[in-house]
């Protein structure tokens, strides 16, 4: 049983490590930011996921100390990684105006939110209100 | 254990916090709190002075942890003296600031209280990392005070001040680290116990740490070539703040005196009197450069700043002689120069406030309101600052000249002190004549329209100058007491025993 667990842990570690490396290789190898974005946001997530899983199994199975913090970290990474990617893409599009012209239309009466303001009352207003409450 | 020892730190801290919590929007309440606190602080400091006068060193083990494991406050005569000095200057400056400066920005009073807290802490602590913490408290409060009221030049000078001190703080930590690495302690008394036993192999590291720490204190004390921050800072700070800063340079001097007599003094073996060869030439150079600056200054504030540098040079060079006699002279001069510089900065502010756009610059301006009174105060402050008789500056100068007589470098002291005195006299005479006399030659220019807020500012300046008069009249007893201070300082066994001995067995 211990062997199986050890094997599992080792496999998870090796797999995780491999994905880490692959993600970073992709980041070096792929030609532009938008394609590079694909590499780390996916591979590294599983890479860390592998390590975390290995850790969970290791402590629970081999050390006998149940440790579920790793779940928390994994959840957290899964929540944040897409967001980071989303923002990086938006910021990149914003910075590189030449990319704007390559974007497909939204199919809606409005453009993409990075370039086009949302419908609604986001209008400049009088001084007093906009400066708002502070202190 | 006497709880009085913690109060000079605790009182301003609590009042500062209360001011933030409860008196943010009420100027009158804030002023009331601030003045009451500072008066009380003075009373506490005086009580501590009386307490310390019996010659016994008292320690206060925070958290009841025995030294050297916990942090210890230690009260000896020197610490008590500095506390009183801080409170006196603080009260004077506060009264002045209440004249209107405190309303020119936010949070003046809490920052002021925290400043007092930091300075008091630096005087009381017996732990050199804790000293770092109090340095940072007094520094960060001073950053806030320095840029109080804003203005381009002031804030930019503030940036310079902050950056310089941040570099200094880094070096402080590095030095503390080296000393801790070799000695394994942070307690100054414990350090004094360990330093003599440090093996030769570790001496280089220990002494490097000690010298770097000396340089850090020298930054605070504005010793050449680490003084560059001072002129810009003091000359651009709000008047009352510059006046309060007069004690901050003394914190550096105090720390040097404290640590380098206690731990690197006569008993320190290979590291004995480590500071002297660095401090003495630098001090004399500082004296010369400072007083040269007095002659070269372009404004009253700048002149006062350079005078402060010069006085720090004289003070530190005298300290560097490291004899009880020289030290007692230095201490007298320290008290004097602190109060004199404080008064001078306040007078410079009185002038600046009355000269419109020219402020205190040496540029033609019409006669100022209350010119006679302000001029008189300037005259007295200038006499004090240049060390002319009959005020305490002269006695201080004589004491120093006499006190360094035994030093191998006495001739340098005498020549430089006397020459620079002359330079300072010329500088101050030119300035005073320009600012107060020359406007009378202008064709019937109307006096400036400035209407001062009240008598409080004059009371404050007058009070500080009155302290100088008292210091002059009672120079004998004061100096006799300072000799006891020095004697206690140079017999560190009492301090060490009090710190390392009494707290044992509390837990």
């Amino acid at each position, binding site marked *: 049983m211990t062997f199986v667990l050890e094997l599992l842990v080792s496999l998870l*570690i*090796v797999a995780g*490590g491999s994905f*880490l490396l692959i993600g*970073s290789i992709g980041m070096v190898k792929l030609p532009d930011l938008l394609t590079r974005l694909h590499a780390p946001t996916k591979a590294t997530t599983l890479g860390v996921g592998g390590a975390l899983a290995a850790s969970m199994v290791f402590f629970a199975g081999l050390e006998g100390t149940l440790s579920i*913090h790793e779940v928390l970290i994994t959840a957290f990474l899964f929540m944040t990684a897409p*967001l980071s990617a989303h923002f990086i893409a*938006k*910021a990149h599009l914003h910075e590189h105006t030449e990319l704007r012209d390559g974007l497909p239309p939204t199919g809606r009466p409005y453009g993409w939110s990075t370039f086009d303001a949302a419908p609604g009352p986001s209008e400049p207003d009088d001084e007093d209100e906009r400066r708002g409450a502070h202190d | 254990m006497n709880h009085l020892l913690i109060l000079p730190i605790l009182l301003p801290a609590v009042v500062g916090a209360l001011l933030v919590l409860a008196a943010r929007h009420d100027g009158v309440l804030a002023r009331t709190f601030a003045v009451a606190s500072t008066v009380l602080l003075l009373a506490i400091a005086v009580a501590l002075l009386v307490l310390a006068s019996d010659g016994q060193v008292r320690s206060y083990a925070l958290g009841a942890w025995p030294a050297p494991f916990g942090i210890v406050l230690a009260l000896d005569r020197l610490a008590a003296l500095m506390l009183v000095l801080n409170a006196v200057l603080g009260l004077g400056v506060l009264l002045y600031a209440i004249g209107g400066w405190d309303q020119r920005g936010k949070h003046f009073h809490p920052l002021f209280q925290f400043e007092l807290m930091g300075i008091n802490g630096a005087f009381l602590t017996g732990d050199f990392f804790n000293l770092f913490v109090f340095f940072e408290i007094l520094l960060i409060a001073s950053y806030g005070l320095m840029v109080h009221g804003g203005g381009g030049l002031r804030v930019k000078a503030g940036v310079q001040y902050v950056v310089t001190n941040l570099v200094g703080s880094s070096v402080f930590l590095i030095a503390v680290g080296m000393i801790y690495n070799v000695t394994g302690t942070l307690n100054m008394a414990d350090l004094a116990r360990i330093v003599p036993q440090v093996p030769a192999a570790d001496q280089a590291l220990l002494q490097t740490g000690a010298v770097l720490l000396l340089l850090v204190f020298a930054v605070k004390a504005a010793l050449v070539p680490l003084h560059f921050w001072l002129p810009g800072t003091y000359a651009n700070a709000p008047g009352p703040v510059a006046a309060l800063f007069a004690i901050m340079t003394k914190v550096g001097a105090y720390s040097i005196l404290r640590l380098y007599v206690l731990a690197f003094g006569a008993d320190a073996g290979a590291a004995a009197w480590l500071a002297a060869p660095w401090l003495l030439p630098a001090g004399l150079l500082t004296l010369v450069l400072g007083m040269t600056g007095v002659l070269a200054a372009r404004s009253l504030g700048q002149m006062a700043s350079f005078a402060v540098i010069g006085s720090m040079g004289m003070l530190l060079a005298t300290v560097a002689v490291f004899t009880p006699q020289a030290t007692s002279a230095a201490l007298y001069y320290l008290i004097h120069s602190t109060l004199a510089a404080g008064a001078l900065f306040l007078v410079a502010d009185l002038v600046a406030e009355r000269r419109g756009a020219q402020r205190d610059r040496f540029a033609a301006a019409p006669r100022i309101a209350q010119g006679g009174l302000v001029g008189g105060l300037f005259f007295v402050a200038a006499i004090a600052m240049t060390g002319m008789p009959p005020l305490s500056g002269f006695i201080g100068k004589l004491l120093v000249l006499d006190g360094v007589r035994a030093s191998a470098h006495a001739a340098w002291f005498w020549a430089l002190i006397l020459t620079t005195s002359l330079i300072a006299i010329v500088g101050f005479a030119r300035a005073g004549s320009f600012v107060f006399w020359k406007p009378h030659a202008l064709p019937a220019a109307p006096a400036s329209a400035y209407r001062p807020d009240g008598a409080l500012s004059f009371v404050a300046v007058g009070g500080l100058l009155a302290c100088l008069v008292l210091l002059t009249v009672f120079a004998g007893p004061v100096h006799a007491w300072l000799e006891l201070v020095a004697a206690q300082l140079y017999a560190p066994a009492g301090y060490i025993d009090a710190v390392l001995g009494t707290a044992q067995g509390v837990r």
Partner: protein
Amino acid sequence: MIEYALQFGFATASLALLLNLWRLLRGPALMDRVLAVDTMVINIIALIVLAGIQQRATYFFEAALLFAMFGFISTVAYCRFILRGDVIE
């Protein structure tokens, strides 16, 4: 066996970090560099977790958690900065 796996893991994570450094040095776009640092954080988290296994110590995980949380926030802050200039508006 786990030890060998760990060595492998350390090696790949370290190599990955060096590749990230390469991307950081090369850019070319600012966002490439942000991405490089973002990925670095991920790799460092992995390193921390692996070190935790190696040292059989659980205290590493809080650090990993905070790295995850704060790495994300600083990435977002950079992006907001590029997008709006004002990180909080």
